[in-house]
């Protein structure tokens, strides 16, 4: 009976879109680093951690006011508790296990055992709960339990919690992890030397040295000496003891320089990769950005024409020399091969509007990048430069949204310059927006005050604007010089021309619905 109700409930949840939406939201905000709003939660948690630790330190010498105590015990701990539960919750889907087990049982005409499914679920959740991160999360909640004053020190686990919210420390750990073998070897060597030297000094000096009474004292002395810290609270008094000291001081120096060099080399090996990841992470937080593939004349020219704050970008170039040049020229470039799937998939495809510009020197590579981008997501806009103009068809087949043919573009400019010089100047002025005429497009968004209005009702004339054409969304048709009684539909795009101030003013009217 209970089992039936639970199964029914699991099916209900499984089919509920709302539940799915809510859960995705929580999963995104807690664990998806690409989710744009995650940083707000992260900052908030860091704030809680820092205040909590601050209160602990403050409380050492001063009486803690009641409200601070209340905040520390109840509010912070409660939020951490909620977070802990939420993390366990989003780790996997309960109902899916039940639903799939139930369906399997139905298919095989076996009796469905709820207990069996529950066991599976609990094991999986436990699996998460024993990960170091989850344990730290749990320990960070503990200081809330007041009767045991000792638990206060668990506030320090809140500091460890910071690891979750700051990527730098994780990267540090990751780099060291790469040198695990070297570091472990050194650690064993250290233990070996300390133990040997400790035992030796214990044997030689236990009777003569008043400070060495136990083996622990001896080992403590060995470690302090080998690390070159040398407090001096214990020092050898016999000749044999001094010889042992000299030996371990020398081996200690060697070991310290060895450890330092291992860590330095680990970082220098990983430095470019870390930097590149940084660049990608940063650009991933942007709402829309460009990926420029290949660094050359065209990219340089393009970036030079770009306005300061206009679209963020990153250059991917596989030739290290060119990357160096790009960095020297002051551009944001990393050494990566854009035709590789794992390179493009590092970018925030789900939440950012990405435009890929394939501007490498080879058509084959450009086609490959186009396909690569389009296979990741159809929403990625791909603009590609064709080296061989006959390749256009292939680029279209690969899914490129725009194919640039430099010679062709130049030809059009040549032709207008020769046959229609005034139009040539006008076009150039319009498009570069340098003159009195500024051309821009305004999209009638859904629910806009323009929707359903006639052109006559829109203050075009008053704002000294020229409505050149209208593009209808549903058929992609251009209505040139539209008549006064044409009615706006949603998603129409108006192409208007006028002074920049007029255009801006008009856009504001549209945006704010001031009609």
């Amino acid at each position: 009976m209970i089992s039936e109700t639970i199964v029914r409930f699991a099916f209900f949840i499984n089919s509920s879109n709302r539940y799915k939406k809510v859960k995705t939201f929580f999963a995104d905000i807690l664990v998806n680093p690409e989710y744009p709003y995650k940083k707000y939660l992260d900052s908030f948690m860091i704030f809680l951690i820092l205040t909590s630790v601050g209160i602990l330190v403050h409380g050492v010498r001063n009486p803690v006011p009641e409200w601070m105590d209340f905040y520390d015990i109840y509010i912070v701990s409660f939020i951490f508790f909620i977070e802990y539960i939420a993390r366990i919750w989003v780790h996997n889907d309960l109902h899916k296990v039940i639903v799939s087990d139930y369906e399997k049982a139905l298919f095989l005409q076996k009796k469905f055992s709820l207990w069996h499914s529950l066991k599976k679920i609990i094991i999986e959740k436990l699996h998460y709960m024993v990960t170091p991160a989850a344990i730290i999360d749990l320990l960070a909640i503990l200081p809330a339990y007041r009767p045991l004053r000792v638990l206060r020190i668990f506030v320090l686990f809140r500091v460890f919690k910071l690891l979750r919210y700051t990527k730098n420390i994780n990267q540090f750990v990751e780099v060291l992890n790469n040198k695990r073998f070297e570091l472990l070897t050194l650690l064993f060597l250290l233990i070996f030397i300390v133990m040997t030297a400790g035992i030796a000094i214990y044997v030689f000096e236990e009777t003569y040295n008043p400070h060495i009474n136990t083996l622990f004292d001896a080992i403590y002395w060995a470690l302090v000496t080998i690390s070159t810290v040398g407090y001096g609270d214990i020092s050898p008094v016999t000749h044999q003891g001094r010889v042992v000291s000299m030996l371990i001081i020398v081996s200690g120096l060697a070991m310290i320089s060895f450890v330092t060099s291992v860590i330095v080399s680990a970082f220098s090996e990983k430095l470019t990769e870390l930097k590149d990841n940084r660049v990608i992470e940063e650009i991933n937080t942007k709402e829309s950005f460009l990926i420029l593939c290949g660094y050359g004349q065209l990219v340089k020219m393009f970036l030079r024409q770009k306005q300061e704050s206009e679209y963020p970008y990153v250059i991917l170039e596989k030739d290290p020399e060119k990357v160096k040049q790009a960095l020297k020229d002051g551009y944001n470039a990393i050494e990566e091969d854009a035709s590789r799937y794992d390179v493009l998939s590092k970018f925030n495809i789900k939440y950012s509007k990405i435009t890929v510009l394939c501007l490498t020197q080879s058509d084959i590579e450009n086609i490959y990048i186009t396909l690569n981008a389009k296979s990741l997501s159809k929403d990625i806009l791909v603009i590609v430069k064709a080296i061989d103009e006959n390749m256009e068809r292939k680029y279209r087949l690969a899914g490129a949204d725009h194919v640039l043919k430099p010679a062709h573009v130049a030809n059009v400019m040549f032709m207008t310059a020769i046959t229609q010089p005034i139009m040539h100047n006008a076009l150039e002025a319009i498009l570069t927006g340098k003159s009195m005429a500024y051309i821009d497009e305004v999209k009638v968004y859904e629910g806009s005050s323009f929707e359903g209005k006639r052109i006559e009702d829109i203050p075009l004339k008053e704002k000294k604007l020229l409505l050149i054409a209208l593009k209808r969304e549903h058929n992609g048709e251009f209505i040139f010089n539209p008549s006064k009684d044409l009615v706006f539909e949603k998603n129409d795009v108006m192409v208007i021309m006028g002074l920049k101030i007029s255009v801006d003013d008009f856009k504001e009217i549209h945006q704010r619905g001031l009609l």
Partner: protein
Amino acid sequence: MKKRAFMLGYGKQGKMICEGLEKDQFLITIIESDRMRYKKAKEDGFADVILMDVTKDENLENLLIEKEDYLICVMDDIHLNVYLTLTLHDLFPDSPIIALSDSIHTTEKLYMAGATKVIDLYRVTANRIHNLLRKPVTTQLLDGFILNTHNISFKEIEIPRDSFLDGMMVEEVDFSKYEIMLIGMIDKELSSHFIFITSGISHKLDSGDILVCIGKQFDLVHFEEMIRRKEV
């Protein structure tokens, strides 16, 4: 009378321009210093092709270049292109020279050498990417104008003497009646610069002013005929 254009260089770009100009009824003279390209131009059906050493001034002087003739420098060797521009500007200072450039530095040099207009291959392409990103719909629309796919184009129309437009203010003319749109004009009285209609300054139309309109080809021709009349 047909317009003339002298093409200096018959490379990839030169070939494209020649084809375009031929469609627009230009008289084309192709000048090449490379035998292979000279042959290619002949094979492509151009009659007036001259093979000569373009670095010799006397060769160029012998060409019958007149004041309004277009000189188009599209040599593949960019150094030669700059040199040629300078020479041509020296020999024929009144002729408009349009040159091809492949970098920002060359563009500067070509202008210094006396080119009237320089088309920078990278600049126009980069411009196009910017336009595609900033104003996709507008770019599509203007492409249509240029390629004439919507049957709509720009036209520069000079106001003839004795036209009914002569002496009228711009605001008084209802262009929508003719199904066309006035984009801007060159007011001979004020300056020879192009003024956009949206600049907000009112203009008096005079004969000799040039109107730049967009509209259907047919309507534009019709309008051009209409303004020849004295009365509306």
